[in-house]
């Protein structure tokens, strides 16, 4: 899958080489140098298995050179952007990490690919992931697990499911990256890889061309090495798209803008920071707890008001998530029957004494099969009332809890538009209860243990809220992330507060 990389590109055809092109223009080749550095990194960190497919290096560099030569198209002009492999590209295969789609190339580009290109971005490649986004460690991929080497030399989890994108950013294999976040799939890898990961409010970034995992929770998220890069990425993608039926309309976007008071974020003194006491669980690692406390103290030191907040339904959020997401998976993955695209097994699939499509669908990975079965069960007539319906109710309670906690009303429910002076502007909590575990130890884990890693990220997903994970403090290689969660549509406030945290920690 990985291309052969020619380090010595300048020895190519002298006339056509990007270097010669640039020399002739007499410009300083910063973008090209940056791109070359990234290609070197891709080669050097190949063993981490961050990419599933990448474009031809010559073509890629020529593209960068062209951007460098021309006036900048946008803030991402000539920058290498890695894209998670569950986002459709017509230039590279889109596998979703699945054996069934291992030879699939989409006939169309996702909206966000068009948006990136319009901002001048160059697609650096398609990054590895858990099959269809299902996993917390990026180990459930047909193309092998993604890994990282910790400071102490151990091979540890990169988080999932957008692990490839996070690793690519962390190791300089690209400028920034796009991932998807359904229950924490951007924030968890961001925390484990010490980069910034942002999940926007549900419906802000188009999902057209994003292969569905759990469509009522799926969002497109972004990774950057710092807050500035990450915000630029988000701004480039944040737009209404008529092709995505859940894309927030211009009308609601306008309402959200009027709802947001930007000075809250700039002015730390008037900031009310919520501390969800229910997140202080027994399983919380000491180092993580310390990072949390440090962050809160620093903000308080700048004059912010800390407010303890009760989010009682949070303890049920994880269970609800693992009922709802598999239910949607069982539906969204029903199309992979081997009839239209992708792979099917040889020979007849569905005779009078076998189940139709069972052979082809049997080639899905173990985790995908597990969740499909879970979902099919929780939607069955016999179990639906106990699982699916209950989980929907819990989801509503989680949303209500958040709406009660925030100072601003939720712009999606204009009928409940009473602001709550006692409420908070943002919630701050850890992204994950522990630093990244060693991959070796994960092998013995029960699937449910892996699910508990998502305990802090899932609530914001259920409520569709914007949430950002960032490394804090001096030690930015400990794999610990702090999460900033805002009211629905308050995405920029989340970035503003994150900047204040960066300044003071």
């Amino acid at each position, binding site marked *: 899958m990985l291309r052969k990389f020619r380090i010595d590109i300048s020895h190519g055809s002298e006339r056509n080489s990007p270097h010669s092109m640039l020399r002739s223009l007499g410009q300083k080749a910063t973008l090209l140098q940056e791109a070359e550095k990234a290609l070197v990194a891709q080669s050097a960190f190949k063993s981490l298995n961050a990419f599933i497919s990448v474009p031809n290096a010559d073509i890629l560099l020529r593209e960068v050179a062209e951007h460098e030569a021309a006036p900048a198209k946008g803030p991402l002009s000539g920058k290498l952007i890695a894209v998670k492999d569950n986002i459709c590209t017509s230039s590279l295969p889109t596998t979703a990490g699945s054996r069934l789609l291992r030879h699939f190339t989409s006939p169309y580009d996702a909206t966000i690919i068009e948006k990136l290109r319009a901002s001048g971005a160059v697609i650096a490649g398609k990054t590895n992931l858990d099959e269809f986004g299902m996993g917390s460690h990026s180990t459930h991929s047909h193309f092998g697990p993604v890994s990282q080497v910790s400071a102490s030399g151990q091979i540890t989890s990169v988080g999932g499911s957008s692990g490839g994108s996070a690793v690519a950013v962390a190791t300089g294999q690209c400028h920034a990256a796009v991932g998807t976040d359904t229950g924490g799939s951007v924030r968890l890898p961001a925390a484990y890889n010490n980069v910034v990961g942002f999940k926007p409010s549900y419906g802000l970034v188009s999902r057209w061309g994003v292969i569905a995992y759990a469509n009522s929770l799926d969002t497109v998220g972004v990774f950057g090495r710092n807050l500035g890069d990450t915000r630029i990425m988000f701004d480039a993608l944040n737009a209404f798209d008529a092709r995505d039926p859940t894309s927030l309309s211009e009308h609601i976007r306008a309402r959200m803008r009027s709802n947001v008071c930007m000075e809250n974020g700039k002015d730390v003194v008037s900031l009310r920071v919520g501390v969800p006491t229910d997140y202080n669980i027994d399983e919380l690692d000491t180092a993580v707890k310390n990072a949390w406390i440090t962050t809160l103290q620093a903000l308080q030191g700048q004059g912010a008001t800390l407010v303890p907040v009760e989010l009682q339904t949070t303890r049920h959020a994880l269970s609800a998530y693992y009922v709802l997401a598999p239910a949607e998976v069982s539906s969204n993955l029903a199309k992979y029957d081997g009839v239209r695209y992708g792979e099917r097994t040889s020979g007849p699939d569905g005779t009078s004494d076998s189940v*139709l499509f069972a052979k082809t669908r049997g080639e899905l990975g173990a985790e995908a099969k597990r969740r499909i079965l879970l979902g099919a069960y929780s939607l069955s007539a016999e179990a639906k009332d106990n699982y699916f319906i209950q989980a929907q109710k819990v989801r509503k309670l989680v949303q209500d809890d958040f709406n009660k906690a925030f100072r601003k009303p939720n712009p999606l429910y204009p009928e409940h538009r009473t602001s709550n002076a006692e409420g908070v502007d943002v919630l701050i909590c850890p992204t994950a209860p522990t630093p990244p575990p060693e991959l070796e130890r994960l092998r013995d884990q029960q699937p449910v243990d892996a699910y508990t890693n998502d305990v802090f990220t899932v609530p914001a997903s259920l409520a569709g809220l914007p949430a950002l994970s960032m490394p804090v403090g001096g030690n930015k290689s400990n794999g610990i992330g702090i999460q900033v969660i805002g009211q629905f549509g308050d995405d920029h406030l989340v970035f503003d507060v994150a900047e204040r945290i960066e300044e003071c920690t």
Partner: protein
Amino acid sequence: MDSQHRRIELQTPSDLTYLEEYAKRVARDKIDLNFPPAAAVGEDAMRKKVEELVGQYLSRTFAEARKNMSINGMPVPSADAVAGEAYEPFDTTQADRIRDLEARKDALQKTVALERRNGAASAARNFEKAYTAHVDAEDMQWLMAKNAVMERAEKEAILGVNAPKREQEYVETYRKAREDLEGLNKGLGGTVGKLERAVGSRRSLDKAQASTYGFARPPHGSQPHIQPPTANHQEDPVPAMVRTAPTGAASILISSHAPWVCQACFRRLQLRPQAAPKSFQLSTRLRSLHTELRVDDAVPYRKLLKDQKNKKKSKGVKGSSNGKGSQLTDWELTVGIEIHAELNTARKLFSSALTSTNETPNTHVALFDAAFPGSQPQFQKDTLIPAIRAALALNCDIQKRSTFDRKHYFYQDQPNGYQITQYYEPFAKRGHITLYPHDGIAEQDYPSITIGIAQVQMEQDTAKTLAQPPHTHLIDLNRVSHPLIEIISLPQIHHAQTAAAFVRKVQALLRAVNAATRGMEQGGLRADVNVSVRKNSAGPGALAYAGIAGLSQRTEIKNLSSLRAVEDAVTAERDRQVGVLEAGGMIEGETRGWTIGQTSTTRLRGKEGEVDYRYMPDADIMPVIIGKDFVAHLRETLPKLPDEVLDMLVREPYGVTVKDAKTLLALDDGERLDYYFDVVHILQETLESEAAGVKGKVGKMAANWVLHELGGLLAASTTEWVHNSVPAGKVATIIAYLLRRKVTGKVAKQLLSTVFYEPEREVEDVVREEDLLLRPMNDEEYEALAQDVITKNEDVSVEVRETGHQGKLMFLVGQLIKHGEEGRVEADRAKLVLQKLLLKG
């Protein structure tokens, strides 16, 4: 297990036969190639064995495949039930006989042709004039009969003498002419009979010979095996007719036995070959499997149903509905119906791809229709318009908010692995329709019955699957996501006949409001029925559905694709359930199937085999909010419903009789009604400047012509209704001629027949070329003619002059018409002039 899967859908049994035969032919060709028959001396043992094995393989393959096929939604009967043609060894004597008979047949054909061209045609011409006079005479017959009676009564009372001699003479002439005419007809019939016998024997021999080749009938497109060596068959229409449509031709020839010979009949005979393919097109239009069609093999599905109906009728209506009459009096039948109807929309339900019915496969498919990864549904708001219209026609409450859900099951015709439907919150609820006797309800439901509609929901259609045996299924995604509505009735129907009437009425309503265009016969509508029975004396049952309590265990019969199937399946299932219960058994909740022509439903799957559809709200589709103003607008602009149209038709300016109005509404899925309105509309424009007396006749006259005159022609030619068999403009032109007194009634009928059989001719041209225009005589001409008649009928004239006897006067009118030039004497003007001469003068 396999019953859970959708079946390979074929359109007619002949598709299956074709496939089988095709496979056999290919196999034979292959064998011939590898074991050339010429190369073998005597019997080739190897070839025989191979043939045997291949034969076994083929029959096994098709036997297996049958289980997974359905024809028009019905299970395929086993191979034994449709046993193929028997193979016979080649027989030289038979072949020789074929040749002999062929020659004899050709000779006979020539004789017939000659006779028809010279003998019959001239004879007909000669007789026509005489006959025409008698037709006019027939018009007068009732007058004369009346006269005769009155006269006799008068005479007997006053003079005591018999009817006048002249009248007897007249009657005698008429009788003789009629006999002559019938004699001619019989003579022709005899010749025709000979030809028929020849054709019949040829056909049976053809069959015998063909089966020696292994095929019962030659495939369409290829010429028959034996070409008649007729030199002049190009000019001679009869052999051509025999070649293309033997059965049709035979029935036409037989129909000439009827005591009616006119030019139109001859035209019809000549033109039949052109008319015939039309009716075949009708049946082939519905076929989606593009196999070569053998014309003589394709029994139209409609005809099948019609035949079945006729068979039933001849057996007596009671046989079908009250077979267990005495036993049934204590049992109450309860039926609920689900109807799926294809909405008439430009675009699909969840993509901007256009809807289509017969386009090139997979050309109307958006990314979402093919379920491409990453694609999402785009609800097409415009599809709401026909859906809401349908719901309004069914008197439903349109819901402000409705949502879409996913219904999951695996099948290759369903790209997403689920169907998007409205399970939890449908867009329309609580409707009803009322059925009247004219809707065809059971007598027990007279004078009317109201049936509740539980809900109406929108949903997607699936892809079309075309089987390419043995292992290939071709999938056409054009139909994926075509918008459908599902209409769910309450279980308030208690008679099979009313069940069929309900489906018929829903179909008519959907068509009337333009919500659906393709009816049941075109596959645009299908019904599932839920049937239960309950013993009246046993009290209410324990089950309930949609708020209707007291029901007993029901079964569901799926995929009924004709009204007849609905009625018969309900009857059969009722009888089966009663039988089971009376035998002390229990009814199981199960899904059953029905095949046309069967006497009982068959079990498809029980409860344990039911698919759990795992309904789930579709989070990608926002709830649909329908505004009150939008519904109000649609309600205001809703086209007239059939019952309203009926009401309108019987009032001015139409003034159609209730009987004719019902017929207009019922015929040809409403096409005849549209046609009628077209005719009336054109007439109203044409006759705008005419007197009110003329215009007032338009509605009634048009109904008479559209139903009876045109209907008569259709029936006589055994052709199905085609919207343009005679364009509305032509009928309107003819009626206008008549109303403006430019032609006589007889000529008008003749005109219609002409343009029916010779569609390329215009009415005006026919009138001009055949000089049919009424040339009204002036008063002097009338007087001269009248004087002549008065002189010739002195006795009567004197009597009229003396007594003013009306009957006698009308007799003279008849004489005047008879003596006048053909098509020139108008009865009322003749009467006026006679009155003037005899009574006032």
